[in-house]
């Protein structure tokens, strides 16, 4: 019975789609997520619930269900996608466990006429859309900010992430590119902080004694507060530490700002990017033309909007923003413009 209903609905929709902009109120969108074991992913899932729950209530789409695999494994997620195909979803929004490993399942979905939008963990299968993070630009933006703030330049300390991970290489490459274009800066030391405050604190404390005066610390997020602790313990002047939107980092920045007017900026990706992917999927279902490769906007916090963002950041979590249909339209328009 269900199949007949779906078939009927699809048929009717095809008719409707011919005349004007298609209505998506009977479309069903699924989120396939590979992992939920950290605060970022938890916030991502909650953002999805908030935004899509409202969208379903408003009748924008018929359903927007979230599915998370337990083991963060490719085989498990591939099986999950096959189930979603069988259940007849119109679109699958995907945070993938592997860039290549799911291509087979994604191709099957496309062949079944399902729109696949991958984000954050994107897939390489050409039939799917990709909303990817430009980590390299993120690293470069940090140096560009420092160049603006510290026109005289100086020595920088770089805190990297987890060695051997793609994201670490990309952000670091961006930072080094930025420094190459701004030769007034020199990276005098580089340590791995593994995106964890305590690891960063220890690594920075170890290299600090050997370093000359540093004016800035470029980071990857999750490590700025640890760096601040180590620099404070060493009794040095506090350099400009670029933060990564974590709650403890923003809290520390706010304290310093209130105490001595400390200035810096903070940049990362908002977990709410899942909602951006949702709206993009809806646009595609709506029949709009959307380029296959889109870029996730950064969530950047500056001196002016620190308080506002800190208030919106859950304790122990990371700064978040929920995207709207208009935001999605803007991201798509930008991609078309390029």
């Amino acid at each position: 019975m269900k199949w007949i209903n779906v078939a009927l609905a699809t048929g009717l929709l095809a008719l409707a789609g011919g005349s004007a902009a298609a209505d998506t109120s009977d479309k069903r969108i699924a989120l396939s997520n590979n992992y939920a074991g950290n605060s970022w992913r938890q916030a991502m899932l909650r953002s999805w619930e908030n935004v899509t729950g409202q969208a379903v209530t408003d009748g924008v789409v018929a359903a927007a269900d979230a599915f998370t695999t337990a083991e963060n494994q490719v085989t498990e997620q591939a099986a999950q996608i096959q189930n979603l195909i069988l259940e007849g979803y119109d679109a699958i929004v995907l945070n993938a466990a592997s860039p290549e490993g799911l291509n087979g399942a994604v191709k099957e979905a496309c062949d079944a006429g399902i729109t696949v939008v991958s984000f954050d963990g994107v897939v390489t299968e050409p039939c799917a859309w990709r909303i990817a993070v430009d980590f390299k630009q993120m690293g470069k933006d940090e140096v560009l900010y420092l160049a603006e703030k510290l026109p005289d330049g100086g020595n920088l300390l770089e805190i990297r992430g987890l060695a051997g991970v793609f994201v670490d290489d990309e952000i670091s490459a961006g930072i080094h590119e930025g420094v190459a274009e701004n030769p007034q800066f020199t990276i005098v030391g580089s340590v791995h902080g593994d995106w964890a405050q305590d690891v960063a604190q220890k690594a920075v404390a170890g290299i600090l004694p050997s370093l000359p005066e540093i004016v800035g610390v470029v980071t990857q997020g999750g490590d700025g507060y640890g760096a601040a602790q180590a620099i404070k313990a060493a009794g040095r002047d506090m350099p400009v530490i670029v933060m990564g939107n974590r709650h403890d980092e923003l809290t520390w920045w706010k304290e310093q700002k209130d105490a001595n007017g400390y200035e810096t900026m903070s940049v990362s990706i908002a977990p709410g990017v899942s909602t951006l992917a949702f709206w993009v999927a809806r646009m595609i279902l709506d029949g709009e033309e959307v380029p296959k490769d889109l870029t996730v906007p950064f969530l950047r916090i500056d001196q002016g909007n620190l308080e506002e963002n800190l208030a919106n950041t859950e304790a122990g979590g990371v700064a978040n923003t929920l995207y709207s249909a208009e935001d999605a339209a803007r991201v798509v328009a930008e991609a078309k413009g390029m």
Partner: protein
Amino acid sequence: MPAAVKQIMERPWIWAYVAAIGVWIATIIFTQGQGGGDLLTAALAFATFSVIVALGQMMVITLGPGNVDLSIPATMTLAGTVATKVMDTQDSMILVGFLLALAVGLGVGLFNYGLIRLLQIPPIIATLSSSFLFQSAAIWYNRGLRIKPPPQLADIATRDVFGLPLLAAAIILLAVVVHVVLHRTTYGRAVTAIGQNTRAAALAGINVDRVRFQTYIFCAVLAAVNGYFFSAFSGGAALNMGQAYLLNSIAVVVIGGTSVAGGFANVPGLWAAAMFLFLVEAMLNTFGLGAGIRLVLTGLIIVGVIIAAGGKRAER
């Protein structure tokens, strides 16, 4: 060579000191003397936390094959989380927080030994599974929220006097006490005896159960104390704060000259080994080597030190 020097050179822990000093000298040669003192201060500050847990781990490992406490990271996290949340940045609550951390350690030790003794689960499995429970309890209790330590406690935990961190001084004293307990008390001798031959120790009239029980409690309480001070030192408890201390505690014990097969403990080596591990990372970072080479060199240097120490022992 004078007899005294010869005697010292035969100690298994001497190689950890040689290695630590060698690495430190290599670093300051590279920086042309800059920051040598600061580097030592930092090494002492961070080694303190390794030594606190390693003291407990050393006693447990000395009990003999199969004895190891894998619940140290989770115990640290739980004690640090509970203490910082209850203290809630109030200086007046510092003592209450400390007592609570001790209570958490006591509870963890009781639970661990209950699994080992009453349910007859091998210690490695018992402490591994209990660590999941403690970690979950910490997550449930506070959801990873970082609450700052009371300002006075943070000050105590991070302060140094002429380059010697206060906390390090306290833990050096603690190490001396443990050294004396190990070599001069019935309890300490019993731990060593059980590690050498449990059956013989039991026949000699040692209450094996009681000694093992006390040792697991001792280890858990130290892990909890470490969680308390480390949260104070690093600006609040975090859910992953203990992670680095599992393998670190075992490595420090082994590099420090304690026999991993049990029955032979070595307190002086713990400090050298803990400083050595920190200084190696600092040295390789200072040299500016890539991450891959750094890890390979760290592994090779550690193997080298253990071979040097072990080779010396074999000659005897």
